[in-house]
C-alpha cells in the first residue's frame, strides 16, 4: 500500500488469511496444538463446600454478581466493599495465556481471579479479575462461571477499566475529562444506570463484553460500567470514578463509603520498577 508521501507500507488487514488448515497436519503438530489448547483452558477451583454443592447438581444461589475487571476496578471493590470482614473466599479461576507471568513468591494464578461470597447474605458474589484473559478464553471463562450460578432473578454488575485512548468522540477530549464512566446494559436490565450510556461508535470488548453477550442471550439483567482513564496503572482518582455505583451496590451489601487514605494507599503503587522510564 502506498501512502500520500510515496513510501510503501506493509499492508495490515483484519481479514484473516485463507484457511491453512487444509494442509496436512502431522500427528506431532496436532498433539502440540491439542496440548496448547488444554493449557489454555480456564479452570475454576471452588472451596470444598461449594464443589460438593455443585457436584450434587445445585448451582450457587446468586441474586447479585459483581465482577471487577482490571486493577482499578478490583482495587475499588477491595477498598470499599471487601475491606469489611464479612467476605469468604470461595474460589478462584486459573487462566494461563501468553501474558501470564509468575509474580515473585506466589503463582500469578493465585490472586489474579478470585471469587468472594458475603457471609451474612450468601447470594451476593464478587469476583475480581486482575489478570489478562485472552480473546480465545473470554467465552469459556464466562460460560464456566455462569454455569455455576443460578440465573433466575440474577443481577450482574461489571466494573471494567479501559484506556481513554479507545474512546471515540467527535469533540476532542481535553486532558481534564478523563477518568469518566460510561454504561452499557442488557435488555433485561430494568434499573437506571448511574451514568451516561456508551455513545456510538464506541464498543466494549474483553471480559465485560463476553459477560454482556452471555447475559443478553440468556436474558439476564446485567450492566457494565466502563471507566475510561488516561492512567495505565492503579490510580486513586480512577478508582474514585466508580463511586456512583456504590449507590446501587449499597442496597444489597454493606460497604465502606469513605475509606481511609491508608486503605487507598495500599492499592496504589507509586512507582513500578519495570516502568522506570521517568524517575
Amino acid at each position, binding site marked *: *500500500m502506498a501512502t500520500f508521501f510515496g513510501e510503501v507500507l506493509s*499492508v*495490515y*488487514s*483484519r*481479514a*484473516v*488469511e*485463507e*484457511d491453512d*488448515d487444509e494442509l496436512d497436519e502431522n500427528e506431532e503438530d496436532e498433539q502440540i*496444538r491439542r496440548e496448547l*489448547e488444554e493449557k489454555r483452558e480456564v479452570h475454576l477451583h471452588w472451596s470444598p463446600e461449594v464443589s460438593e454443592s455443585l457436584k450434587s447438581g445445585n448451582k450457587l444461589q446468586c441474586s447479585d454478581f459483581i465482577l471487577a475487571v482490571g486493577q482499578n476496578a478490583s482495587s475499588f471493590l477491595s477498598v470499599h466493599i471487601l475491606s469489611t470482614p464479612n467476605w469468604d473466599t470461595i474460589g478462584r479461576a486459573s487462566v494461563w495465556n501468553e501474558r501470564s507471568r509468575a509474580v515473585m513468591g506466589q503463582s500469578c494464578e493465585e490472586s489474579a481471579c478470585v471469587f468472594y461470597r458475603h457471609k451474612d447474605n450468601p447470594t451476593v458474589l464478587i469476583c475480581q479479575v486482575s489478570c489478562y484473559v485472552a*480473546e*480465545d478464553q*473470554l*467465552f*469459556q471463562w*464466562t*460460560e464456566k462461571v455462569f454455569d455455576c450460578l443460578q440465573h433466575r432473578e440474577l443481577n450482574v454488575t461489571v466494573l471494567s477499566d479501559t484506556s481513554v485512548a479507545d*474512546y*471515540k*468522540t*467527535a*469533540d*476532542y*477530549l*481535553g486532558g481534564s475529562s478523563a477518568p469518566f464512566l460510561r454504561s*452499557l*446494559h*442488557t*435488555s433485561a436490565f430494568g434499573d437506571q444506570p448511574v451514568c451516561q*450510556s*456508551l*455513545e*456510538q*461508535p*464506541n*464498543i*466494549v*470488548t*474483553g471480559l*465485560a*463484553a*463476553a459477560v*454482556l*453477550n*452471555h447475559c*443478553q*442471550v440468556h436474558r439476564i439483567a446485567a450492566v*457494565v460500567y466502563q471507566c475510561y482513564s488516561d492512567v495505565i496503572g492503579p490510580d486513586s482518582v480512577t478508582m474514585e470514578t466508580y463511586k456512583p455505583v456504590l449507590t446501587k451496590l449499597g442496597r444489597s451489601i454493606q460497604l465502606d463509603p469513605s475509606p481511609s487514605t491508608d486503605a487507598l494507599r495500599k492499592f496504589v503503587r507509586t512507582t513500578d520498577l519495570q516502568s522506570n522510564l521517568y524517575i
Partner: protein
Amino acid sequence: MFISSQRSAPSFRDFTLVMPAVAVGNVGQLAVDLIVSTLNMSRVGHIHTDCLIPMAGNNPYASCKEDGEELHTPAEVYAAAELKLAVLQIRAPILQSKTKKFRQLLVSWIKSSGFSRTVVLSSSHAYQRDDQQLQGTPLRYLVTPSLLKGSADALKELGWREMERVPAFPGLTDGNTEPRLCIPGGGITKGLYTDSCKEDLPLAVLLLFCSEGDNIPDAFALANHLNDWLHLLDDNSKQPNKWKIPTSWSLLFGNGIPPALF
C-alpha cells in the same frame, strides 16, 4: 448456535440469507450494515458462539434516542419477512483457531433453517490480482452448482464475471499447475464456498477486489451490485445515495482534532 431474541423462534424457510465474510476492508460487513439500516430490519436473534471475539455495543442502527440503548452482540440475525430476507451481521473477527468450527456452524445453521439461497458478501486483496483481473470490473461472483440451476439466467443477464481460477504457482510450467480457486484476504469465503459445494447448498459469493482504506465506496458498490440481482430496494432510480448510512459509521478514522494543534 442461533438463539432467538423473540418469544418464539422465527421461521426462515424459503428466505434468502445475506451474510458477510470478515474480509479485507470489511466491505461485506459494511454492505450488510447498509442493507439492515436502509430496510430498517429488526433483529430476530443472535448467533452465540465461542468462535468470535466478544464485543458489545449499543444499537448501531439507532435512528432516535428511544432505540439507542439496545445491546448488540458480535453476530446477529435480522429479518424482513415481507421481502423473505434474512441478514446475518458479523461484527467481530473469527478466532484464528476456530475458523473451521465457525464454517461448520454456519453450514449446519443454513441447512437446518431451510434458506432457499445464501449470498456471501466478501472481498479480496486488490494487489493480488493477476494481469487479467486488473482490467474491467472489480466485482466477481461464485455460485455453487445447487444455486446455478435456478439462477443461471439471472446471472447471465447481469453480465457478471465469475471468479477466475488461478494457477497455484504462476510462472512455473511443470505438470502440477492445475488452476485453483484463491481468494486472498477473503477470510472464510473460500472455505465456506467449498463446504457449500460439498453439502450441496445453494450459495453464492459476491466479492469485490479492494484494499484497506476508506471502504465506504466499496460497500456502496457491493450493495448496489447485490441490489441489481435481488432487487431489495423497490426504488428503481439510479441515484447513488439510496442507501442509508447507519450512525455507527461515524468517526471511522479517529477522534476529533485538538483545536490547539493549529
